């Protein structure tokens, strides 16, 4: 029965009609028109008021309710403005809590929960071969292994394979550059379920050694380096020595397993066509993906693959037996991609949640203290007839206002937080690249604010009808009940406990970082400049490359300040994982039963390598220019090999050789020197099993990495060195110049960021907790003025009162730390069920965090304590 609501003109008309009729009647009765008009108006009364109450009849009820609430909000705003300091503390505390949570949630959402762009991405699996026995998580696959799986497995509809290579690309950008590229089979893109944005992708026609070379550009490279140029399609380029045509641009997708700029078919990589790649079962460099057959499930695939794989392992004992327990694992691609970031993000999520709990309990504290102060006011309102509902509404309006402001500020804070966390998580999962703030942050912020507002509105006790509140009503003074006091202390203790957990964890991360940064690497990191000079694009013969290198090093040696120049294959830490490791043996050594031959890293180096990098030779001599092809084969071994395999210290002049089938017939080399241990894989050096060989004895021109040691500023040499190299070999890429010190800093960046983010959380927590303790004590002191007055009056010394309040702060902090330590242990135990390698902090971070917290709590209680000791006796005794 909805009637048309009269609009304002309608109401005016009605009133005007009323007046006109009334005037007319009076005139008809004989009154003077002007007097009649006045009388009619007087009789009518207040026109506007009447009209408003007519409109009020038609107004929906919820508008009234809303207006009432708006009134409450205005009232709340006014009363909050009277306590600006407290309101600001609450808002900032909440903003930190809400901002941190909103940011972490939105990163978690996009990294762990969002589906991939790949078609039917939940039918997509990643297959991984690992040897936990020798600690290798991902061994990848060799071509014979892939062929075996392809021919025997039925639950996987088709397999796609991907291997990463480096090409020097000519013709795509103005300068020729080395780029990371993927080499894939024709089925790869179909299996991955990816589409082109331009042109076509690599398909079954591009399979095999007879196909033409084709390349697909990945979206990011196309959009950035090629500025989305559509004419790139059909372009002829050269990938190393091989020609290829650009046929398409891939849609934006998660780059996995490697972030490459181009993806090409197998024919572009001579290595992939060689016999080693095709027939050697141990030559593993290919990642394997699969798309499930229509009726298959992840379980049926796992079951079938494990049977098939067991059979393959049985058939080739020479490859799989006794080599670290080969295993095959199948995971959904999505899980595989987000797995490394999972732990980090879950830990951050927990940290953010802790910060939120701390923030909430701190705010609850402040609100509780405030509500006790205004108990008088509430009692007056209750006495005037405000029901519990109305009083709650007042409190709710206030907490809504505070939390709303906190949420707004928090969402604003979330923006920089998100980019910080995303940058951080991108080190662990490619999915975090390009995460930005989305609307979900707003919802999360609003949700958190509502939750905290509701919680806060129900924290304070209302003046009840039963409890005689006459006293409070009478003088409006602050009275603190044991119940309130207990609650305040409980909140403060909670904050301390949680802060302790965060502080101890941050301390642990910092301690690890410091240990990494201060560990001695064995290199002279400050004075060595490392430059990548990959083999030139065009087929330069090793001999002419060697000549170019000799000329280059002669000319660089004449630059001012240059002390040494050397050539090597691995820039420490930056090229970690790229240096090959093989099995070897030495003269007179037989491994114990059931043990493999030892493994060592093979490092081709030029003469003066050790001098250039500042690595001392412990015994023997360095390589010389005479150690070349045709001369006697020689090696230098690391000190660890010497000590382990030649316990009698007689390593020099003995022989060493590789036993890996890759090297064919064993070729013994005489050991001419022993170098000090240096670990080019790990920033915290471990045992270095390394065998060095002269580049010139390995049929290589150069090994691709130039090391220049200088007395002056290493970076000043970059321009002249580039010039020298380009003059001699115009096509030669000269890339990534950096001192070893900076390389190391770059490698340590994730750890630094990790420690930084966590310390940030811990810092926030500490700050909030200190504010909390100070607040509780300040409140408790001001409420106990009378008590202190009496104590002073009966002879307590002010110093005793000071000590008493300080000890209260210390007790809160100590109990908090104890609970935090116990809780942290339980948490760590719980977390270790879900997250691998949960570490407990060492004694130093734990004690440090405890001392810091207790100290901060005592400092925070200094001010209230000083106030307590300065209480004026007379004033205090009169105060109630």
């Amino acid at each position, binding site marked *: 029965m909805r009637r048309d609501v009269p609009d304002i003109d309608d109401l005016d*008309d*009605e009133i005007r009609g*009323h007046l006109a*009729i009334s005037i007319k009647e009076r005139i008809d009765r004989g009154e003077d028109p002007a007097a009649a008009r006045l009388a009619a108006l007087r009789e009518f*009364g207040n026109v506007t008021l009447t009209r408003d*109450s*007519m409109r009020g*009849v*038609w107004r929906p009820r919820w508008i009234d309710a809303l207006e009432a609430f708006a009134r409450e909000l205005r009232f709340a705003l006014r009363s909050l403005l009277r306590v600006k300091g407290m309101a600001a503390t609450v808002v900032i505390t909440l903003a930190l809590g809400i901002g941190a949570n909103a940011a972490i949630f939105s990163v978690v959402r996009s990294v762990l929960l969002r589906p991939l762009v790949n078609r039917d991405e939940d039918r997509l699996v990643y297959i991984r071969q690992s040897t936990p026995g020798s600690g290798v998580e991902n061994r990848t696959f060799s071509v014979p292994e892939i062929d075996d799986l392809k021919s025997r497995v039925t639950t996987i509809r088709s397999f796609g394979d991907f291997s990463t290579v480096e090409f020097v690309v000519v013709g795509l950008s103005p300068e020729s550059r080395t780029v990371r590229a993927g080499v894939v089979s024709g089925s790869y893109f179909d299996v991955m379920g990816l589409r082109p944005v331009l042109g076509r992708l690599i398909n079954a026609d591009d399979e095999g050694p007879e196909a033409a070379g084709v390349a697909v550009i990945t979206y990011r490279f196309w959009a950035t380096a090629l500025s989305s140029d559509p004419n790139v399609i059909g372009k002829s380029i050269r990938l190393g020595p091989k020609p290829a045509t650009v046929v398409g641009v891939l849609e934006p997708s998660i780059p996995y397993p490697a972030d490459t700029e181009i993806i090409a078919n197998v024919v572009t990589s001579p290595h992939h066509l060689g016999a080693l790649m095709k027939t050697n079962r141990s030559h593993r460099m290919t990642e394997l993906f699969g798309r499930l057959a229509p009726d298959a499930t992840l379980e049926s695939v796992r079951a079938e693959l494990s049977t098939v794989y067991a059979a393959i392992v049985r058939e080739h004992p020479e490859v799989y037996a006794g080599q670290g327990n080969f295993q095959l694992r199948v995971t959904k691609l999505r899980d595989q991609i987000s797995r490394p970031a999972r732990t980090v993000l879950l830990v951050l999520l927990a940290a953010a949640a802790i910060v939120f709990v701390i923030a909430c309990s701190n705010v609850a504290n402040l609100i509780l203290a405030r509500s006790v102060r205004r108990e008088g006011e509430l009692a007056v309102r209750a006495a005037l007839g405000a029901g519990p509902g109305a009083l709650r509404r007042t409190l709710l309006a206030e907490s809504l206002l505070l939390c709303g402001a906190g949420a707004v500020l928090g969402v604003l804070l979330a923006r920089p937080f998100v980019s910080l966390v995303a940058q951080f998580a991108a080190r662990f999962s490619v999915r975090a690249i390009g995460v930005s703030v989305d609307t979900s942050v707003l919802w999360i912020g609003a949700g958190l604010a509502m939750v905290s507002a509701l919680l806060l509105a129900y924290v304070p006790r209302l003046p009840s009808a039963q409890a005689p509140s006459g006293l409070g009503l009478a003088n409006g003074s602050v009275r603190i009940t044991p119940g309130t006091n207990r609650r305040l202390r409980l909140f403060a203790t909670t904050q301390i406990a949680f802060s302790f957990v965060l502080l101890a964890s941050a301390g642990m991360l910092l301690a690890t970082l410091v240990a990494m940064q201060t560990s001695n690497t064995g290199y002279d990191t400050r004075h060595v400049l490392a430059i990548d000079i990959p083999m030139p694009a065009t087929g330069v013969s090793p001999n002419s490359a060697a000549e170019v290198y000799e000329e280059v090093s002669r000319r660089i040696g004449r630059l001012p300040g240059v002390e040494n120049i050397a050539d090597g294959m691995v820039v420490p830490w930056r090229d970690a994982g790229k240096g090959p490791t093989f099995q070897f043996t030495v003269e007179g050594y037989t491994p114990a039963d059931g043990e493999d031959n030892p493994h060592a890293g093979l490092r081709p180096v030029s003469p003066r390598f050790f001098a250039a990098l500042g690595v001392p030779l412990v015994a023997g001599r360095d390589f010389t220019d005479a150690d070349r092809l045709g001369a006697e084969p020689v090696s230098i071994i690391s000190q660890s090999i010497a000590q382990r395999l030649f316990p009698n210290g007689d390593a020099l002049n003995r022989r060493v050789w590789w036993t890996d089938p890759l090297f064919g017939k064993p070729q013994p080399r005489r050991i001419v020197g022993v170098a000090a241990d240096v670990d080019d894989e790990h920033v915290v050096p471990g045992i270095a099993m390394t065998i060095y060989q002269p580049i010139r004895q390995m049929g290589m021109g150069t090994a691709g990495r130039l090391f220049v040691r200088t007395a002056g500023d290493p970076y000043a040499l970059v321009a002249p060195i580039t010039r020298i190299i380009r003059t001699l070999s115009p096509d030669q890429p000269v890339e990534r110049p950096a001192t070893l010190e900076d390389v190391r800093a770059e490698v340590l960046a994730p750890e630094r960021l990790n420690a930084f983010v966590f310390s940030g959380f811990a810092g926030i927590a500490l700050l909030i907790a200190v504010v909390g303790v100070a607040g509780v004590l300040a409140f408790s002191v001001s409420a106990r003025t009378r008590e202190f007055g009496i104590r002073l009056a009966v002879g307590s010394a002010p110093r005793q009162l000071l000590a008493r309040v300080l000890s209260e702060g210390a007790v809160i902090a100590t109990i908090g730390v104890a609970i935090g330590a116990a809780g942290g242990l339980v948490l760590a135990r719980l977390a270790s069920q879900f997250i691998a390698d949960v570490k407990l902090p060492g004694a130093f971070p734990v004690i440090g965090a405890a001392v810091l917290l207790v100290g901060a709590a005592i400092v925070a209680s200094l001010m209230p304590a000083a106030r307590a000791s300065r209480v004026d006796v007379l004033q205090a005794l009169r105060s109630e």
Partner: protein
Amino acid sequence: MAKTSDDGRLELLQGTLDMLILRTLQWGPRHGHGIGQAIRAQSDDLLKVETGSLYPALHRLVKRGWLKWEWDLSEANQRAKYYRLTPAGKAQLVREQDRWSQLVNAIGRIMNPAPDSKE
């Protein structure tokens, strides 16, 4: 029942205005001014309804579905809003009248006890 105000009129008892309006409209539609006049005239000038209460009350009754309005020309040749009882309004009038007589009856017994009802 109603207290006397300064000018000798009675103020309306709370809750009776709606009933009076419905009753006034029993014999046909009237405009707001007319309703006020009618109540005043029929009470021999003892009851006077303030426009500030009358008009909101009229709109409230319309909203509840007991009255309807239409625009028409008044006897004074003025455009005015005429209120008319709806069937629901007629039923409501009967209910209110019943309740009112019960109330008057009950209060009357207390205020003027009949001599024979005493025991």
